[in-house]
């Protein structure tokens, strides 16, 4: 179990590191945050007003003190106030997060339900035309940026069918699941396309490895049907690398949502980060980046732990 303990022990250290980087990064931005917040109106402040604002936001203190205040504030959910929204950063993030999470989960669902069968299909027809076809498609899918997929989908819809994907008013899942899925399906396909390709490639190569294993030969020789050999004996083992890949990719899906949300004008976390950057809402950028990185880390930790549970070699092997 030493592997699990080591991973768990590293987690808070990495989290502290991440928070320090985010903290310092935001403070390296040229100009002080009061000017950034008030824009040209900052020029109208008297020195006294400026000082009292600095005291109010705590930026009169040295960096280590500021960091300590901010970091300890994190534990009570205090990420500061967003200037653009005039609300606590955490509440802005939590408003936007469900959409991005749903988008990433849908994209993952689409990718797995296309990628795994396609990978198995290709592996069982190794080096035959069907295999080659799947591999070429996967290679092209992996090389196509999500914004190209998105723009092409929008173009086909608007030029071919004269419709535009619903933009603007967004319906949350719990209000009207059908309408929500109707709005989310195209963005999810857009985001999941490249991921489906990598799932296909990894499933195919893992299946090929497993299919040449002794136990598969044993299963065949004792008369198991080809179908049972592939789906019952081989696939569960071949899925181990797919699980790892899914975990790693999930973090990228959260990050990649920036572009897809921008194309489809979805009010998610990714688009919010982008807007916050353009509007120089530093508290919001800082909080959102930390939030996404934390999610990414938690998913990676869970994947590592799941991996250790699935594969005893990882657990027992030393560093």
């Amino acid at each position, binding site marked *: 179990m030493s592997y699990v303990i080591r991973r768990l022990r*590293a987690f808070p*250290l*990495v989290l502290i*590191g*991440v928070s320090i*980087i*985010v903290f310092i*990064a*935001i403070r*390296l*931005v040229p100009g002080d945050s009061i000017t950034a917040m008030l824009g040209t109106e900052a020029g109208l402040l008297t020195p006294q007003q400026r000082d009292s604002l600095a005291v109010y936001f705590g930026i009169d203190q040295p960096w280590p003190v500021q960091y300590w205040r901010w970091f300890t504030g994190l534990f009570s959910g205090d990420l500061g106030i967003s200037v653009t929204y005039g609300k606590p950063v955490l509440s802005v993030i939590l408003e936007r997060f469900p959409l991005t999470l749903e988008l990433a989960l849908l994209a993952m669902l689409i990718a797995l339900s296309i990628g795994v069968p396609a990978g198995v299909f290709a592996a069982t027809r190794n080096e035959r035309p069907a295999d080659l076809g799947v591999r070429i498609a996967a*290679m*092209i899918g*992996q*090389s*196509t*940026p999500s*914004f*190209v997929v998105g*723009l*092409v989908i*929008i*173009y086909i819809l*608007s*030029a071919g069918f004269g419709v535009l994907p619903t933009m603007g008013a967004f319906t949350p899942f719990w209000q009207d699941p059908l309408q929500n899925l109707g709005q989310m399906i195209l963005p999810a396909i857009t985001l999941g396309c490249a991921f489906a390709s990598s799932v296909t*490639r*990894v499933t*195919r*190569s893992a299946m*090929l*490895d497993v299919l040449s294993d002794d136990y598969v030969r044993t299963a065949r020789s004792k008369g198991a049907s080809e179908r049972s050999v592939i789906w019952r004996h081989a696939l569960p083992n071949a899925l181990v690398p797919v699980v790892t890949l899914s975990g790693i990719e999930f*973090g*990228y899906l*959260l*990050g*990649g949502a*920036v*572009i897809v949300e*921008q*194309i489809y004008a979805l009010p998610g976390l990714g688009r919010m*980060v*982008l807007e916050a*950057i353009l509007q120089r809402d530093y508290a919001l*950028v800082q909080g959102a*980046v930390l939030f*996404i*990185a934390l999610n*990414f*880390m938690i998913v*990676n930790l869970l994947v590592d732990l799941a991996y250790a549970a699935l594969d005893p070699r990882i657990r027992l092997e030393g560093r």
Partner: protein
Amino acid sequence: MRVVKAILSHPSGRIGGVIVLVYLLVALLGAVGLTPHDPLMQYRIDRLHAPTSSYWMGTDLFGRDVMSRLMKGIGQSFTVAFFSVALATLAGTVLGLTAAWFGGRWDTVMMRFMDVLLAFPAILLALLIVTIVGPGTWTSVAAISIVYTPIFTRVVRGPALSLKARDFVDAARTFGSSRSYILTRHLLLNLVAPLTVQVTLALAWALLTEAGLSFLGLGTQPPASSLGLMLSDARNLMEQAPWLLAFPAVAIMLSILGFNLLGDALRDILDPKTRRA
């Protein structure tokens, strides 16, 4: 020479190699300014002109020649990709080699720091860097190279650790070879194969990231052209002028495809252990 022959006899190596070569040529022509028209010249009469014999890929909203802008944009995208991957390779190799060689506290601190960088999704880390420095070409280079440095550090450190424990390194030490000689001759030379594969694949990712940043308006700034920026400009015009979407889209896809194919081929050739995926 042996590697070149192997690439040519590998199906995806052949296709990837040809694509990459063609792009390098186009990028070079674009970078030195040998384009059919001036990429910044606005031919106002010919605004949004469909492809013709004088504008092979049509013109954009300002009457600028799409093909010239595309060539210039490919030059731009490749410059960013090459510089950022070169920086990441250099930094990653130095950090990975020294981490493996000195071990101890330096290794621990370095690798923990790399873990921290890896805890950020790539595009987000890039966005954070762009926030600090402001958008632009060299910001993209810095952002992409910082994103990829931890990956190169890991790629180098792992094999370097196992090489360090091999007999021939011990032998070299007994003969009195200097530390720098061992590091460069015995460790680095043996790492060329895995590094080559990683560099090729990283170039594909760097092109993708650069295009993404430019698409979001945080990379190359107008009026200069880059593939991502051209696509972003095409967004509102693609129904009237589908060529504005089609050519940059295909150009981005093919460039990434080329490096991916070449990287796959190199992995098959240089690393016999991994199976073709």
